[in-house]
């Protein structure tokens, strides 16, 4: 049937919506599931009300009617009773919505955390610090968040410049990062997988390219990742990488970036100690591949114009050497 075929792309769109890595319709954590329950109730109830209203309008337009008078019909008792019933129905429905919202909201804010992470949002990347009671077990990474399944993580949210918003739709609602304030969000993931978060408060030129790579794994995998992140940077092995390391530490790179275990201690840009173990580059703007890293280094302003990493003039050999070094930072 023609109309059905025309609707196929609509169904395709709807199906795609349910499965995206950044979709709130495919909840993977307690918090996003609580929100999804509210959404299910409201979308069905509101759709019903909507169709009912349109139906009433259609009935009003097409019904057979006696000649209406001009005056005094305002006092029609049946209509007045219907109006009263309608108001009661609306108030009842809204009260129900308020109640389920309140209960779901309470579930978003509780829990004893098993893991504490501090995220400081900057223009236009995420500084992610894994906290620990032992200072030696704290480390800093950037633009990625790994969480163990079935454990509650408390993500503390701060801002280094303007207002940003931390949002991983599959896992929880969003919370703003506001300078001068410390907010927090709780996440208890229930399903392994890769998810994508994105800054959700307009924060300037590259708000569109400020994504967060989130991976949920079982506890063992998470612990081994933590151990790896705690280690200082891998030493370069090949001659090219050695030369790259030397260039990194003596030119502009070290002015902004930190690579733990080397002299590079800049605090302006993201920590690069384990850069090559990440899945994306430049807060999700590019995948972590050699070609993309090379292009990024040559001109960061091309994929992400306005971002704070300048185009450092390098000869192709120097650029290759630095890329070799960086790709070894696993």
């Amino acid at each position, binding site marked *: 049937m023609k109309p059905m075929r025309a609707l196929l792309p609509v169904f395709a769109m709807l199906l795609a919506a349910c499965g995206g890595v950044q979709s709130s319709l495919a909840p993977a954590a307690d918090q996003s599931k609580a929100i999804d329950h509210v959404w299910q109730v409201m979308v069905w109830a509101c759709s019903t009300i909507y169709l009912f209203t349109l139906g009433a309008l259609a009935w009003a337009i097409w019904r057979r009617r006696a000649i209406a008078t001009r005056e005094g019909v305002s006092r029609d008792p049946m209509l007045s009773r219907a109006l009263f019933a309608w108001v009661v129905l609306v108030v009842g429905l809204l009260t129900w919505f308020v109640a389920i919202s309140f209960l779901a909201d309470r579930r978003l804010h509780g829990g004893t955390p098993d893991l504490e992470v501090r995220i400081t949002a900057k223009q236009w990347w995420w500084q992610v610090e894994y906290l620990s009671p032992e200072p030696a077990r704290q480390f800093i990474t950037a633009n990625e968040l790994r969480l163990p399944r079935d454990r509650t993580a408390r993500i503390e949210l701060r801002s280094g410049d303007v207002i940003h918003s931390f949002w991983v739709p599959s896992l929880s609602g969003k919370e703003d990062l506001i300078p001068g304030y410390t907010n927090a969000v709780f996440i208890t993931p229930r399903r392994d997988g890769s998810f994508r978060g994105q800054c959700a408060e307009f924060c300037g*030129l590259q708000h569109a390219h400020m994504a967060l790579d989130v991976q949920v794994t079982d506890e063992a995998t998470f612990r081994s990742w933590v151990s790896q992140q705690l280690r200082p940077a891998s030493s370069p092995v090949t001659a090219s990488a050695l030369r790259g390391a030397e260039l990194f530490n*003596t030119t502009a790179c070290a002015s902004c970036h930190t690579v733990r275990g080397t002299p590079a201690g800049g605090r302006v840009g993201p920590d690069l100690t384990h850069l090559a173990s990440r899945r994306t580059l430049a807060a999700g703007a590019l995948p972590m591949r050699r070609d993309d890293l090379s292009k990024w280094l040559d001109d960061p*302003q091309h994929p992400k*114009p*306005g971002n704070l990493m300048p*185009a*450092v*003039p390098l000869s192709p050999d120097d650029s290759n050497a630095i890329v070799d070094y960086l790709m070894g930072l696993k």
Partner: protein
Amino acid sequence: MAALAMSACERERRAFHSAPEGTHPRPALTDFQPGSAMTQGVSDTGLAYERNAYHINQGSRWYRAFNCNGCHGNGGGSIGPALMDDQWRYGGNIDQIHASIVDGRPNGMPAWRGKITDMQAWQLSAYVRALSGNVSKAAAPSRRDAITSTPPLTQLPRQSTDAGDASAQQPPPQ
């Protein structure tokens, strides 16, 4: 009217790429020089940077990021000279400031060439010009979103760049 409009356009432009390396001038740093006089005017590059609000603001960002505060304070000076006054040992126009930043200077000013890009050096120079009130009020940022440590840059009096360092002008003690 048109000139006003064009200057306004230039003030507000956000440029993310800089001129190619090697196009910056070699300004004169002192009146005392042999042979023919070196260039005294300010280069076009320099003028473009100090008239642009975006570049001045970026300069304020690098000032904090690269710890210029460590020696120069917030402009009032500490172990390094003040940048908000009218005493310029190596000259106070933007080309001269740029040269000081990239070349370094005796007694503690590091040479930043290679450690920061040329565009960042120009942006820092533009900001130093703003600290001494030498940029247009429309282009200067008033305050940072941080602890206040200077008067608003839009309210600074313009510091002259004619004089050299006061200590260099005093006669030696008898």
